[in-house]
């Protein structure tokens, strides 16, 4: 790549994607947020406070772990895991919520709202709200409330109100709709912490910037461990925040392959999946233009994935752009394949990954054997699997 990557433009466009497609009441709120974000991004006090929180509260830097036994078993590239599962609250989501909560505090907002799918972002939001003493309301699809009850309990313990959303498909997209409705109603005192790199500008860029700590650390750690850049980066993609966090600092390093793994559910050909980049088309939802799962009339299609965190019909607009320009590649992994990845990491390395991250593991099992032993793959292990114990036990016919 000859020119430095500078996306998005000042109105949040990544080529034809991104933007600010919202109802009028939210326009002033998004402008206020963008102004605050641009200001504090350059503010040394803000950056110092954020860095301290990431170190002492989140527990950063997270290790880059060489999965030697698994690499050997697969017989190809050396596999390294970026251990975001070791963060406080158990996933990469906290990197972003810590940042946005600090912004909320500086903007004088007293109330925090969030949407959540698997509950990881909800927990990470409830956590920072508790720490700052802010009121917190988390919207979660009723289907997800049922399948991620452990995280619902955690959020409640942390003092958050969890609202089960009964409209539409009762999953992540409906939680986002409901959070937007709350924001439009309570826009004066409320800060909406979006958990992924979707939504209207400035969220896709802002969440990316807060998550880019993952890639910045990885680059240094990879040099320290191998003396050079990695050959491939692999991350699961729902909305795409963990993937963009890993990819972003490597975008100008043309030799580094970037692979995003979408959820194929029962298989892309069955229509029961959550893979808009692989099998969707461009459209507008939740404030931005991106690849979506929609029918010929533009109505959003219900999605499916074993992992609640990937069960979303859209994807961050920057991924749409990286796909179109060919800088990143997007593949898909079925529920069944994801389980293979889940068991492999659990048994080979003694690390139980989240079902979301298991999609990246499963793809790596296909990729690693095709690469040389002196090549390096880095997988973003975006979250730990504790929250999925009920889902897994149920699949195995075990009552906990």
């Amino acid at each position, binding site marked *: 790549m000859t020119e430095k990557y500078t996306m998005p433009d000042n*109105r949040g466009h990544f080529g034809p994607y991104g*933007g*600010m*497609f*919202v*109802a*009028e*009441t939210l*326009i*002033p*709120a998004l402008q206020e947020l963008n102004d605050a974000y641009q200001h504090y991004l350059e503010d040394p006090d803000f950056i110092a406070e954020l860095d301290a929180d990431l170190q002492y509260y989140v527990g950063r830097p997270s290790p880059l772990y060489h999965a030697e036994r698994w690499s050997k078993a697969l017989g190809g590239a050396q596999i390294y895991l970026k251990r975001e599962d070791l963060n406080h609250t158990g996933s990469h989501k906290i990197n972003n919520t810590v940042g946005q909560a600090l912004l909320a505090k500086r903007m004088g907002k007293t109330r925090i709202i969030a949407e959540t799918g698997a509950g990881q972002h909800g927990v990470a939001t409830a956590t920072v709200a508790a720490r700052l003493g802010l009121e917190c309301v988390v919207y979660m699809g009723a289907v997800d409330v049922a399948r991620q009850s452990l995280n619902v309990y955690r959020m409640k313990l942390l003092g958050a109100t969890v609202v089960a959303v009964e*409209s*539409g498909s009762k999953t992540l*997209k*409906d939680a986002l*709709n409901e959070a*937007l*409705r709350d924001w*439009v*109603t*309570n*826009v*004066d005192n409320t800060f909406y912490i979006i958990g992924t790199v979707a939504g209207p500008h400035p969220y896709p860029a802002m969440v990316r910037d807060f998550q880019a700590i993952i890639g910045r650390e990885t680059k240094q750690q990879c040099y320290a461990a191998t003396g050079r850049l990695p050959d491939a980066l692999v991350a699961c993609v729902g909305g795409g925040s963990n993937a963009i966090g890993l990819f972003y600092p490597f975008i100008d390093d043309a030799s580094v392959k970037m692979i995003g793994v979408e959820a194929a559910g029962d298989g892309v050909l069955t229509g029961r999946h959550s893979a808009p980049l692989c099998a969707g088309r*461009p*459209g*507008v*939802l*939740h*404030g931005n*233009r991106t690849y*979506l799962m*929609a*029918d*010929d*009339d*533009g*109505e*959003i299609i219900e999605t499916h994935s074993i992992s609640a965190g990937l069960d979303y019909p859209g994807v961050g607009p920057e991924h749409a752009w990286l796909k179109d320009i060919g800088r990143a590649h997007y593949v898909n992994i079925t529920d069944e394949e994801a389980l293979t990845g889940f068991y492999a990491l659990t048994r080979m390395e003694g690390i139980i990954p989240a079902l979301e991250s298991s999609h990246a593991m499963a793809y790596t099992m296909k990729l690693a054997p095709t690469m040389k032993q002196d090549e390096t793959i880095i997988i973003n292990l975006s979250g730990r699997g504790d929250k999925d114990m009920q889902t897994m036990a149920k699949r195995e016919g075990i009552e906990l």
Partner: protein
Amino acid sequence: MSRLANTFEHLAKTGRKALIPFVTAGDPTPEFTVPLMHAMVEAGVDIIELGVPFSDPMADGPVIQRASERALAHKMSLKRTLVIATEFRKTNQHTPIVLMGYLNPIEAMGYEAFANAVQCAEVDGILTVDLPPEEGQQCRELLQARGIDSIFLLAPNSSEARIQKMSALGSGYIYYVSLKGVTGAGHIDITDVENKLNLIRANTTLPIAIGFGVKDAVTAKLISALGDGVVVGSALINKIEANLTDAERAKNEICECLVAMRTAMDERS
């Protein structure tokens, strides 16, 4: 002159305000909508906002969300909404129709095909909730070239600069969202609306229709005194929801409600 401009000019001459019902196309069934539109005209409405059902109506409250869900269950779509508009136009040449909905169905159809289809159906204006003017230039120009008005929203927190922008880019009328919230919310504040309307008036010559939270004849009268028109949606759709097995009764109750609003709005105070 466009049908919308004509309507507002005529109303202004007779000292009346526009009564603008919002109904979702195809709610509760596709067959219900055209007869309902004609009945509403009989009841005294001036303009009809026809909602295009969408799977993810982010700016709408639960009542209009459920209306969308009922319509979508009958495979209602943007295309079929345009068929309804065409059907209505066959026997009514004077009542303006404004399509109100979300952007993605328009994206799926393609902007140019959409503009052509809207022209063909003799629809008069387009209000796309999640298409602010910054993102909507292409769509607006295609519509403008075909004589179709682009109607923009203003909100209680819209700045003066924003008001000027909407005034410059919009046509037909400006839709003032009377409260911070979703459609059908219950916390409209007449004094707030009045103050904001003064600011908007100072910055535009376009007619101003006021909506969100208009529940009954009393609020309709109060609100209409402040602007040039009143939009009522959820209060009407409630009547559909209460009479899902009796379409005729739903239609009659909607018309009774509109007649009461019309009468209250036309009273000299």
